[in-house]
């Protein structure tokens, strides 16, 4: 059941490089990451690739397979024909360190710019009471494995280096929404989402939602509601206060 597949893999360091051709064995049930590992073990021992869990849980193995952002460990070889040439390249939006490995520090920097969870001062650990329905919205966003493929695919920064300073990308706009919807968070996040993190740049193309391996509805459930909250807020600042009180009214 095994066959020889044709792979074209990006090789290179620090801004330079080219696609290299490989012919490599593929066995039943294998995923693209298995094939990259086979290349390392047999033909290219210094081929660089990130991975950890090999089960779609850690978000390390993001790459572009035939131009589409995918997790290497969750892309089965059976989704391609045996004749197809499979092209594997690093994520395009971030600088390449070597081969398939990118410098993703942009994301960690943006993460640090989002003010942390801010509970009321008078609740002590162990006293939190929240209904399942009230935590579910934020829980959806906390499924995020930080593969950064949504940030990679978003056109606002994909080919626009100049927007990176002002735009946190879907991953971290969603983090703001997550905190805004947390029943116990009391920080004011809506103005800052717009002014400090570039929510206004998003024109809801939904490309981020399409690539999310966790199937999080980033645009519909995080970005659009966040935009609506910002608009409501402009008309009526009291709405925000009302929302905050409402968030925990059921508990």
């Amino acid at each position, binding site marked *: 059941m095994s066959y020889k597949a044709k792979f074209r893999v990006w090789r290179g360091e620090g801004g330079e490089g080219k696609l290299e051709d490989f012919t490599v064995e593929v066995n039943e049930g294998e995923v693209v990451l298995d094939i990259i590992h086979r290349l390392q073990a047999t033909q290219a*021992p210094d081929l660089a690739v*990130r991975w950890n*869990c090999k*089960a*779609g849980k850690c978000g390390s193995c993001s790459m572009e397979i035939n131009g589409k952002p995918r997790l290497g460990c969750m892309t089965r070889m059976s989704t391609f024909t045996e004749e197809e040439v499979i092209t594997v390249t690093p994520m395009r939006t971030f600088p390449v360190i070597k081969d398939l490995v990118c410098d993703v520090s942009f994301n*960690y920097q943006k993460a640090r710019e989002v003010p942390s969870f801010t509970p009321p001062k008078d609740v002590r650990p162990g006293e939190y009471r929240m209904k399942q329905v009230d935590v579910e919205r934020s829980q959806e966003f*906390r499924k995020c494995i930080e593969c950064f493929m949504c940030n990679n695919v978003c056109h606002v920064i994909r080919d626009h280096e100049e927007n990176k300073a002002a735009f946190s990308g879907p991953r971290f706009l969603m983090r703001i929404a997550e905190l805004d919807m947390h029943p116990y968070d009391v920080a004011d996040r809506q103005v800052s989402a717009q002014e400090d993190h570039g929510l206004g740049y998003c024109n809801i193309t939904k490309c981020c939602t399409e690539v999310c391996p966790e199937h999080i509805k980033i645009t519909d459930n995080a970005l659009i509601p966040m935009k609506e909250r910002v608009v409501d807020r402009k008309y009526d600042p009291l709405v925000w206060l009302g929302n905050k009180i409402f968030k925990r009214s059921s508990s």
Partner: protein
Amino acid sequence: MEIERHDYDVVVIGAGGAGLRAAIEARQQGKRTAIVCKSLFGKAHTVMAEGGAAAAMGNVNSDDNWMVHFRDTMRGGKFLNNWRMAELHAKEAPDRVWELEAWGALFDRTKDGKISQRNFGGHEYPRLAHVGDRTGLELIRTLQQRVVALQQEDYETHGDYEAYIKVFAECTVTRLLKDGDAISGAFGYWRETGNLIVFDAPTVVLATGGIGKSYVVTSNSWEYTGDGHALALLAGAKLINMEFIQFHPTGMVWPPSVRGILVTESVRGDGGVLRNSEGKRFMFDYIPEVFKDKYATSEEEADRWYTDQANNRRPPELLPRDEVARAINSEVKAGRGSPQGGVFLDVSTRLPAEEIKRRLPSMHHQFKELADVDITTEPMQVGPTCHYIMGGVEVDADTGAAAVPGLFAAGEVSGGMHGSNRLGGNSLSDLLVFGRRAGLGASDYINGLKVRPKVSEASVESARKEALAPLERTGENPYEVHQELQRSMNDLVGIIRKAGEISEALEVIEKLKERVQLVGAAGNRIYNPGWHLALDLRNMLLVSECVAKAALLREESRGGHTRDDFPVMAADWRRKLLVCSTTDGSGVTVVEQAQPEMRQDLFDLFDRGELKKYLTEEEMDR
């Protein structure tokens, strides 16, 4: 080439649950703290944990309390546990879980709005705080975000996010440095550039996780090369309980490339059952004598238990992991396995499809994507996989201090807490409880220091030579040596062991040690996985030698150590720990050491009839 230097109070090696909790504590104690890890921040192995964190909060069954949890933990470990650790763990776990909630974690809820708790093997009551089946992700993300919160505080006061706590991601430590007897720092390299780095620091907290990559079939990732175990040995510390390895009963068996990947125990906790090729729920045939009165003897009783725990006994699918793994092994050997060499794990006939998707979303996803199996309509095929090492650095229970002054350890790399077998869910809580304690221990040690130990240039030079050596050689490819080690450990020191096979494994290890001296890494220093593996091999071989030597000496079967030639548990052996050490790293010595006697008030928490099953007559006479 210049070696980069950094000064810290505490260097935490590892950014999983244990490392992050230790670093948070050290920083909260006002210590300048470095977190060093091999992967990106937020990707450590802890992220993979699924089922939950065990803590006797009593939210679902109010009869639960620390004493019940303590008893379950000791039973699960067959009474070989360090009882002081088991005590601290049971007492402090609830506070550690609640603290996560105050840092932003969102656990699943009970009807009255508290943290929900689920059933797991060996736990008497529903005890695991969880978020669906992605609890590890929640835990690591919360701790990661707590580190960021502290960095934001430091930015407010000092104008620098990294004034007190900094993450060195994709950086591997290869040696601990000492001044006389005491720790003075650590040496490593940046994976990204291959540049070398030295930390000057009076304390090191090891939180490097486990060793599973010495086995072929494992649920563990590439990070699990036993680095912390080896670093501790090489620095003069001792390892205990290395013969005890947990083979998780349910790993995926098909397709071959995902063999070993974990299927969470929550599948069984939430009602899933194990069947053989004849359709029989075989676990009823494998309830061991010591657990006879705690487990159901009929399917009817077992099924009633899910809704009425007060009047029924638990289903045998929820026996401790060592029992279930051995049972599956026996069924397969007896020819009653599934087509792909495992057994059937079925939840499709037990819960409605919607409920399965809600409670076990990542299992649903994992089987669909990787095996083309829809677990809401058909059974999974599963078999044992190397999952967790109970053994590790011998530490002081209260402070996490190892035998070397300035060295601390917490989490999977430490030993003692779980005895001969860990209960599911007890690791995540262990990370939090002992991570915090190790961070405190390191801080207190620094407060008591009169002079700061110094890094000697000679030790840096020899660490530098060792690290660069594979790049200068053109010998064998490290992947081949690695594969041979994995196969040998899997086949010869696996789930069922015999003296002859273990000795054979030791011979293989001796030969591989010679080959490792010659392996070469093609390519340069920039993000070169072949070079990284060549360096990891030293650690895997040292640790494998510990496992095999201790396994050969322990002539009994207990928890994660099953000897075909000594199939029974021997009360005399319970009193002995096997302690590994090395003088120069060329070989490992194992000696017996007496296990300290349990404190009277803890002893009195058990029924004497139960204790008799584990203790010698002499011990019962107190």
